[in-house]
């Protein structure tokens, strides 16, 4: 055992392998920073290179990449409020408010130390797990997976926002969105709105960007001159961030454990790890009012967990040859390409390769966090720049990111529609994290209930792990109920909780009901295998809406049921949210005419000229720069941007296609 470990260390520390590792780390950092691209896209970028490469170098390069995407994805999450990968959605909740206070460097510092700690912890777990984890993983059957999903779903209780019913309705709405497109058990397309795009379910990337990125961009455009409200960066952030982490090391350790366990177990997948860690942090603290307003613990938790999960996800990938996440599936593909086949054979005969991966994870996390620390002071300065200069590029990037989901026009349209939903959810106080958790778990809820009941009936409840998970779930719900968070805002007639002028909220609720009814009538056309879940999800949405509608109709005093952010601190000079929604619609329509690349470039140029009042030549340079960026990416990743009517008539040269 130790022989293999030492041999692997010797293999890693050759110049060639080390260079490959660093190349992988740098690529991983770049794709992590770019929203929408993550480990999956990064590995896809490396695949053409690894075939025929020296196996050790290829291995170090691929692992180096996967290990650090969740380190650098913190930059957009913390500095821009745009989740860099789906693993850092929860980081936005507290990281971004810190940045707005001018504490961007402090938040980044917390995140990088946590990522480093989590990543090394993950490698540490992996080095033991390869010997004993197999029987444990094989114990996690359908019943246990079902309970894991329910436990994860119970985290919604803590993230409902001020009003429980609105939170539950938001979660239900997420479940409903998850039912669109091909049904998991029958493949039948349901509730497709007649679109080919919904042959597959809605992509998580698109929903995540719509929920968090667009509302923030619109909000910032309306209110602020720069992301940092003070227009400055607190100079002492670095040390402070490290101290924040050190005083929360126990939380960081717990969340790293959560991350590596959930990464290793089948049933949940990596994309909820950050939410579970965040929920855990909130549940286990008494004074939880500060969460969501820039609490360092809200950064420590998800960032520790999302790096630790990579080590965890390698456990089933290496032991059983069954990938533990989307990026692990590609990694497995890459391993096969270089002639390494994970599974029993690898553990028996190629232990040095296993150790090479473990060392690589640890080394990559150190190199990755080091590079991030080095770059961060420069990058964090972006938060002091006038926001109108940044916003058009951000809009370009989120549409580019959404397009990575399935590389289809539908991605852009789905992003726009869901963004409108999210903008109004924010305005009317509906919990967007609750919707996201519902959405992520939707398919798993549907299939694991069916599979467990079909296979075991109710007898699955007698299994010991199921019972333990059940207790945890009850505890999690109890914690949510007993320590209910109170709204920080006073209930006044003048404030957002006013009972007056509720018609915008009525329109929103009517929209949700119309959507639920559409899914309901569609679901009832199908057999049980296809139609049961959408039917149940839409009915539950309406059940959760009932108390809200009741309160809306009869309550005559300010209440937590009511919320309209527009009634409070409406910006004096800024434009309305509807103006910016209209702007995005026009931009997409124009892109429909001239194609995505030219459409975005024109938008950026006009925005820089009109809104930011730059000279024409600077505005044009901005648009052209973005075209160049898109061109380089399309060349590197071999992708084609959505075309418009224009492209039916003329063939444009690179990079204008």
């Amino acid at each position, binding site marked *: 055992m130790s022989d293999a470990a030492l041999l692997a260390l010797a293999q890693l520390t050759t110049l060639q392998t080390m260079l490959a590792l660093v190349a992988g780390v740098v690529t991983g950092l770049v794709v992590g920073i770019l929203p929408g691209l993550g480990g999956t896209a990064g590995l896809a970028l490396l695949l053409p290179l690894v075939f025929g490469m020296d196996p050790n170098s290829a291995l170090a390069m691929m692992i180096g990449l996967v290990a650090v995407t969740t380190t650098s994805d913190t930059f957009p999450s913390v500095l821009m409020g745009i989740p860099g990968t789906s693993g850092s959605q929860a980081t936005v909740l507290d990281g971004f408010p810190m940045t707005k206070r001018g504490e961007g460097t402090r938040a980044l510092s917390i995140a990088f130390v946590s990522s480093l700690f989590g990543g090394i912890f993950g490698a540490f777990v992996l080095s033991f797990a390869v010997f004993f984890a197999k029987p444990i993983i094989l114990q996690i059957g359908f019943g246990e997976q079902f309970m894991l999903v329910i436990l994860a779903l119970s985290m919604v209780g803590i993230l409902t926002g001020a009003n429980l019913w609105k939170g539950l309705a938001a979660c239900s709405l997420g479940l409903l969105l998850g039912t669109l497109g091909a049904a998991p058990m029958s493949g039948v397309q349901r509730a497709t709105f007649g679109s080919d795009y919904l*042959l597959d379910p809605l992509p998580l990337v698109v929903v995540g960007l719509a929920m968090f990125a667009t509302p923030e961009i619109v909000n910032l455009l309306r209110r602020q001159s720069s992301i940092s409200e003070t227009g400055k960066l607190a100079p002492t952030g670095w040390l402070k961030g490290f101290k924040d982490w050190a005083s929360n090391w126990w939380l960081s350790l717990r969340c790293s454990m959560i991350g590596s366990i959930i990464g290793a177990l089948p049933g949940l997948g990596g994309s909820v790890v950050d939410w579970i860690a965040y929920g855990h942090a909130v549940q286990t603290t008494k004074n939880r009012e500060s969460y969501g307003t820039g609490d360092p613990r809200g950064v420590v938790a998800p960032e520790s967990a999302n790096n630790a999960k990579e080590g965890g996800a390698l456990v089933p990938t290496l032991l059983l040859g069954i990938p533990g996440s989307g990026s692990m599936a590609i990694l497995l*593909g890459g391993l096969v390409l270089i002639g390494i086949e994970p599974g029993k054979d690898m553990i028996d005969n190629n232990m040095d390769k296993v150790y090479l991966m473990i060392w690589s994870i640890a080394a990559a996390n150190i190199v990755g966090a080091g590079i991030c620390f080095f770059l961060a002071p420069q990058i964090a300065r972006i938060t002091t720049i006038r926001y109108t200069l940044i916003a058009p590029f951000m809009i370009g990037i989120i549409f580019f990111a959404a397009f990575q989901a399935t590389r289809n026009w539908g991605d852009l349209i789905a992003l726009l529609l869901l963004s409108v939903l999210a903008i109004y959810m924010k305005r009317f106080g509906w919990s967007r994290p609750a919707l996201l958790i519902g959405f992520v778990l939707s398919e798993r809820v549907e299939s694991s209930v069916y599979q467990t009941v079909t296979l075991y009936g109710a007898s699955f409840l007698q299994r010991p792990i199921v019972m333990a998970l059940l207790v945890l779930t009850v505890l999690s719900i109890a914690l949510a109920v007993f320590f209910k968070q109170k709204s920080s805002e006073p209930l006044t007639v003048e404030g957002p909780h006013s009972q007056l002028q509720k018609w915008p909220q009525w329109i929103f609720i009517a929209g949700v009901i119309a959507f639920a009814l559409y899914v309901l009538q569609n679901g009832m056309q199908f057999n049980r295998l296809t139609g049961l879940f959408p039917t149940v999800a839409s009915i539950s949405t309406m059940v959760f809406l009932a108390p809200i509608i009741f309160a809306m109709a009869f309550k005559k005093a300010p209440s937590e049921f009511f919320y309209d952010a527009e009634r409070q601190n409406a910006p004096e000079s800024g434009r309305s949210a509807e103006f910016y929604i209209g702007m995005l619609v026009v931009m997409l329509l124009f892109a429909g005419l001239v194609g995505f690349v030219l459409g975005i470039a024109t938008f950026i140029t006009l925005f820089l000229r009109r809104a930011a009042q730059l000279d024409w030549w600077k505005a044009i340079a901005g648009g052209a720069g973005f075209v160049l960026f898109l061109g380089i990416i399309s060349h590197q990743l071999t992708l084609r941007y959505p075309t418009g009517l224009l492209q039916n008539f003329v063939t444009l040269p690179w990079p204008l296609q």
Partner: protein
Amino acid sequence: MLDGLKKFVVGAATAAAVALPGMAQAEDFSLEGKTVTWIVGFREGGGTDRLTRVLQTKLSENLPGNPNVIVLNKPGGGSVTASNDFHENAPADGTMLIMASTSGLLPVLMGSDVANYDPNEWVAVTGFSRGASLYAISDDIGLGGSDMKADYEALKNANIRFGTETPLSAELLDFVSMEMLGIHPNYLFGLSSKDAEAAFQRGEMNMNTDNTRSYLKDYGEDPKVNPVWSYGVIDENGDLQRDPDLPDVPTFPEFYEAVTGSAPEGPAYEMQKSLMNAKVMLSKAVMLPKGTPDNIRDVYIEAMKAVTSDPEVAAALPREIGSMPLNFGDETQRALASGTALDPEVREWVATFLEERFDTKLN
């Protein structure tokens, strides 16, 4: 293995003979300075993508004019999205090809209304066959492995648990085969092949299907897991032979005949054969767009022969597809015809079967 290699050589020679007449025209076709786009209807890293990338490394040097060859991943709808687009828009000038696979052929075979393409109109270059078998945890079902009749009785009476994605996925081959024999497993849906594989490893499922190559890797040495039958391979004369990697395992028709006393026939067997062609013989297939001229086709057939016999590629191929023979040109086109079309009576049989067994409609 040797057997497979021999067939490969024979197959290649036959196809070479077919291709010869076109050679004269092929001389003046060149792709110099062009970019050849190779469409893959799946995400990076899956089986179809990997095979394409292995072949991609050597394709350029074997094409006239050594064009730049890129792989373009267009995931969506199990490759239906990419296939629709390819059928509609791909230029027939040798600058675009597609790596088709079973999951792109099945919707056509089943007449799904989302598949607006007909692979029969495409021009076949190379087909990659990949063996498949049905295997089970022997003790759990009561399979002895020596007496087919006794095993058959056990299969009919056992509580078989078989995990699969949907009633219309590629496992339909297994459903139909078992239905012909009156074997009725409990099917559990919503499991991708990796989920089904994991559930089988846990013992929650006790029957599974996979390609022969994966089966041998995962369970070749495991005495507890044994194949029930393989789906064999069709040789150049159109006859079904045993899987070269599983020479001791009976093919499905062999098993059928041994336990029922007569050879399989009728619409159910026609369906079984079509599914076998789509799943085994055309596990993956390199195709050019409809209307591609013969000279371009012949250039590609020659190029793919050279690519697949390149030592580096030949060493990687068994990892991806096992050691079954490749098929080229007309032979591939024939398999395609069988794998994508059903006679009306066969279609009627399968519609009734799906309706009765799974409450599922063919659309």
